[in-house]
């Protein structure tokens, strides 16, 4: 094989690696890249460089598959997909519920938001199907449009002047929550993602949990307090996070994965209880902080 000059994309991808790692492995990475892309088109070379760039970023951020954080993300990714699909279905049901619909299809922005609410569950269902069957490349590629669709809600909702979802907290959550979910799914190391019966069991279990929690929220939404007010059921996701944190041990990667996977939905359901601060919000925050102490104390004892 003749030695080629690395392409600009490959040079950038290599630059994303820590300097010491690049010095040790850069030549070999370049050689493998060159052999793997010999005779390939521009798109294929870019995909290969993108994969090397992702590896570099994981090395820099400590999220490689050889690190605990990367292994936890790999556990969390399929569960985060299940929760995102559940969340998108929940958003749709919420929109169809009596007395809640605030977006009549009377203008283009409203129609686009409503269309997005219908398309999002379909996209997330496709992502989940990819995860279920082990087609992670397709699943992760679909996460990008699913996230962008959700992010598009922000400018559209500003145009609709919607009263319920047009507040600053709601807007911020519309940006932060989808980005958190996408980060969990896309940052997980690819070589730890596959399809196994235990993974499918965990996904099914998380889906069942989501149905229970969101079902409780949905059922109680209109009975005790006016819409938008704080409710006990809004603290349920914080309770799930608290239980996952309490069960977090080195030999229980599933609990750690669940704790990371539920973070976006905990943010979504708990932040409105904290801004403005309510008794429910205080309780949820205290519960999470106290339970977070358990894995920290365990880790400290292990290192002592």
């Amino acid at each position, binding site marked *: 094989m003749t030695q080629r000059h690395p392409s600009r994309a490959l040079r950038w991808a290599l630059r994303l690696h820590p300097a010491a790692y690049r010095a040790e492995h850069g030549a070999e990475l370049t050689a*493998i890249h060159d052999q*793997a892309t010999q005779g390939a088109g521009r798109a294929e070379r870019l995909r290969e460089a993108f994969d090397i760039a992702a*590896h570099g970023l994981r090395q820099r951020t400590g999220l490689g*598959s050889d690190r605990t954080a990367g292994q936890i993300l790999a556990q969390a990714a399929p569960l985060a997909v299940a929760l995102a699909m559940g969340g998108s279905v929940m958003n749709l049901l919420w929109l169809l519920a009596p007395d809640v619909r605030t977006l009549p299809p009377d203008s283009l922005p409203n129609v686009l938001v409503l269309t997005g609410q219908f398309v999002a569950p379909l996209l997330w269902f496709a992502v989940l199907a990819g995860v279920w069957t*082990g087609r992670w490349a397709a699943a992760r590629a679909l996460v990008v449009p699913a996230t962008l669709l959700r992010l598009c809600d922000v400018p559209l909702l500003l145009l609709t002047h919607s009263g319920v979802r047009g507040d600053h907290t709601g807007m911020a959550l519309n940006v932060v929550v989808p980005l958190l979910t996408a980060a969990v799914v896309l940052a997980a190391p690819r070589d730890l993602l*596959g399809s*196994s019966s235990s993974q499918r069991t965990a996904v099914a279990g998380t889906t069942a949990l989501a149905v229970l929690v969101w079902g409780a929220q949905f059922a109680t939404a209109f009975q005790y307090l006016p819409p938008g007010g704080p409710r006990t059921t809004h603290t349920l996701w914080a309770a799930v996070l608290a239980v996952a944190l309490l069960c977090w041990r080195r030999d229980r990667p599933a609990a750690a994965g669940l704790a990371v996977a539920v973070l976006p939905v905990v943010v979504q359901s708990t932040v409105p209880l904290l801004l403005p601060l309510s008794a429910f919000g205080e309780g949820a925050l205290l519960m999470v902080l106290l339970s977070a102490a358990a894995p920290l104390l365990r880790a400290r004892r292990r290192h002592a």
Partner: protein
Amino acid sequence: MTDRPLQEPTLLLLTALADEPRHGYGLIQEIDAISQGRVRMRTGTLYGALDRLLQQGLIQVEREEIVDGRARKVYALAEAGRSVLAAEAERLRAVVDEAERRLAGHRAPATRPKGALA
């Protein structure tokens, strides 16, 4: 290591190294062949997996060589990796055996004559 089943990329990588040591691109080609073209492992993904398997002691760098002016490492299965792969193969064999036993013992449901009572 836990006793959980191996994820497919790990299983394919260990299998690719089971018969002889290989360098990076050789592993990509071998995984492509073993999976019958279904799994095309990219360079960054392969390197991530190699880092992890080296750290877990399942593989080792057998030697470094210079080819066309470039250094490359040749990876080999370590003893621990051989045991993990053997255990996984045994687990998969048990599932396949059971599937074949059940398929062989399966009888098509008898068609009931028209008008017959259960």
